[in-house]
């Protein structure tokens, strides 16, 4: 796929099995959204197709698709119920079914009183909830979520995760484009990592971790971490670090090094390399940092919380 003379996607091919949750990962500008848009016919690829059960994706599949685009937006001057009913009908529901679903959904997300309010009178978070409702109102067999947590507060994030899990339980296939590695680790069965329009890694999380080798040491400590040729600091927060270690290095040697350097070790867990670490290795420190900046603040808070929680339970 080209944008002008620039080649943005090249030789990319992957399968998503029915009922699985698939993570589509990559740094900013790696071609994730472009790939999704090309698959859905929004962009025209130079070659290639999206095949579902062996059939090329076309307009007739639209009623079984739920797509949450990265660029969010609905008809802002219209009422919530009118917009939801309109999209419901476009997705094949009757007017009655669309209105019934809309009211049930609004009740679920505490917006029952806003059914007749114009969308532009709602807060950003409330609009996100409506957009999510529109995405799932036809109970889609294939759910494509492009940066689903972008702009979501923790409450909406929780709602989104619940919905993804519900759709998974109902047998739907979920394709998720994201930067949030802990969400990937929690939800995804398989992943693909994209760089410059090419697949850098592809498989289950275990397979990808094995493909890149090495391990991660999750360290809870106080003091100053010494520099060492035996490890690389992949994640560094207050009194917490994740050290990337080669397969050949014995963890006990690292522990010894730290203690000798005067570091007070409060927790020391060796595990396979984290996706964060692999991400940094693939995209480099600069790109990864840029990615982190692009992620929302809530996302970062959540990631820290999860890391600390996981760390604590591992000791």
């Amino acid at each position: 796929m080209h944008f002008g003379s620039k080649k943005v996607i090249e030789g990319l091919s992957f399968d998503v099995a029915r009922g699985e949750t698939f993570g589509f990962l990559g740094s900013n500008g790696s071609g994730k959204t472009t790939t999704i848009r090309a698959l859905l016919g929004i962009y025209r690829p130079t070659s290639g197709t999206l095949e579902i059960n062996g059939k090329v994706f076309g307009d007739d599949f639209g009623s079984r698709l739920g797509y949450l685009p990265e660029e969010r937006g609905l008809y802002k001057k219209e009422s919530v119920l009118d917009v939801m009913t309109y999209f419901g009908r476009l997705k094949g529901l009757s007017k009655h079914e669309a209105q019934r679903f809309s009211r049930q959904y609004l009740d679920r997300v505490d917006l029952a009183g806003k059914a007749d309010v114009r969308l532009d009178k709602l807060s950003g978070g409330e609009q996100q909830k409506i957009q999510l409702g529109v995405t799932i109102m036809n109970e889609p067999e294939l759910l494509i979520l492009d940066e689903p947590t972008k702009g979501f507060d923790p409450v909406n994030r929780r709602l989104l995760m619940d919905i993804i899990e519900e759709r998974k339980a109902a047998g739907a296939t979920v394709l998720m484009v994201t930067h949030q590695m802990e969400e990937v680790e929690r939800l995804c069965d398989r992943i693909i990592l994209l760089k410059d329009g090419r697949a850098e890694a592809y498989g289950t999380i275990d397979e990808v971790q094995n493909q890149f080798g090495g391990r991660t040491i999750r360290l809870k400590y106080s003091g100053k971490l010494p520099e060492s040729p035996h490890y690389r600091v992949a994640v560094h927060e207050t009194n917490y670090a994740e050290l990337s270690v080669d397969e050949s290095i014995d963890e006990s040697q690292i522990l010894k090094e730290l203690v000798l350097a005067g570091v007070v070790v409060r927790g020391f867990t060796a595990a396979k390399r984290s996706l964060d670490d692999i991400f940094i290795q693939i995209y480099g420190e600069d790109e990864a940092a840029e990615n982190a900046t692009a992620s929302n603040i809530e996302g970062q808070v959540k990631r820290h919380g999860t890391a600390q929680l996981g760390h604590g339970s591992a000791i």
Partner: protein
Amino acid sequence: MARHNLGTVVQFEFTRTVKKRRFWIATLAIPVLLAIVFGLVFASGSSTQESTEQQKNQSLDFSYSDASKLIDPSIATALGGTLEANPDTAVERVKEGKLNAFFSFPANMMKEPVLVYGTDHGIFKNGTYDAVAKQLVILSAQEKVGSEELTVAVQGDFSTESQTFKDGRPSGGLETVVPPLLFLVLFYVVIILLANQMLASTLEEKENRVTEMILTTLDPTTLVVGKVISLFMVGAVQSLVFTAPMVLGYVFFRDQLAMPDFDLSALQFQFLPMLVGALLFIGGFILFTGVLVGIGAVMPTAKDAGTVFAPVMISMFIPFYIVTMVVSDPGSMIVQIFTFFPFTAPITAMLRNAFGSLGTVSAAIVIAELFVFGFLALRVAVHLFRYGSIEYSRKLSFRRAFARKS
């Protein structure tokens, strides 16, 4: 998925427009304004009629001199006049307010004007002097001729009824021109009313970032066609609201509103000109909407779209600037160019069709051209919408949009 959604799109687009308070305020503003104007015309019409009657019957105190020997003294007396004994000082006496009015009838009224002097009674009442002076001449002349019929003939105060023939059959006059011209009026009204709405309507998906949701749910052709149909319906509603007060005024208050007394039963709806008019209207509408949708898809905002929109509108309406030539000299080169250039064709061809100067072959060519270019424009517009409206914040590159593959 696509086709059965057309009704849903039409219903959504139409309903959301007519549900808005803003739409009704804008739509009702014009008939309300018309009603106010009609009301004022009605009021002033009544008072004008009354004052005209008063002026006619008014006995004016005046003196006159008659070098023409045309004025009948008895008629002058009946109108309040006396023969001036001293014409040389009459004007001075009028100036001083000692004499109300003085009329000086010259020896040859074909070469010299009747001089009318009067005391100022305000701009409207001052008109009485001229009216009485003219009336005095007319009545005196009538008396001299001794025949009312001759006077009417001389004054040209009579009507004619003409009948022309084409191919051995009556070809009709204005009554055959008016019906096909209704398509031109309809075209003009529809474009004026809907142009901005059409432009804004297609820009809306872009400005609201709703394009991706739409394109994965709905075939863009269905969306665009649905919008066109719903806007046509909106235009029909607006036209009805606008014309209602005029129809009511014509039917019930024609005389009071000084509306022309058309004998509508005399209108001749000839099949071929009406068919050509209808096809020109539909073809022109398709071409016009296709172009507007295309502009909406290419431009990122309504403001940007406005710069391209203006030249399209101007080229559409420019034939009105040469309307006299279109009617009187349809064979001229400029009229021929305007007839066949797609943007100027609808209005030029509709005018020529109404006035009977658009031949069958030319009509067929223009209609075919409008439909071909119209559907082409609509197709290009759908394509631009599909691949252009995703360019949310920038203008679409045509090269990229029409590249065989991106």
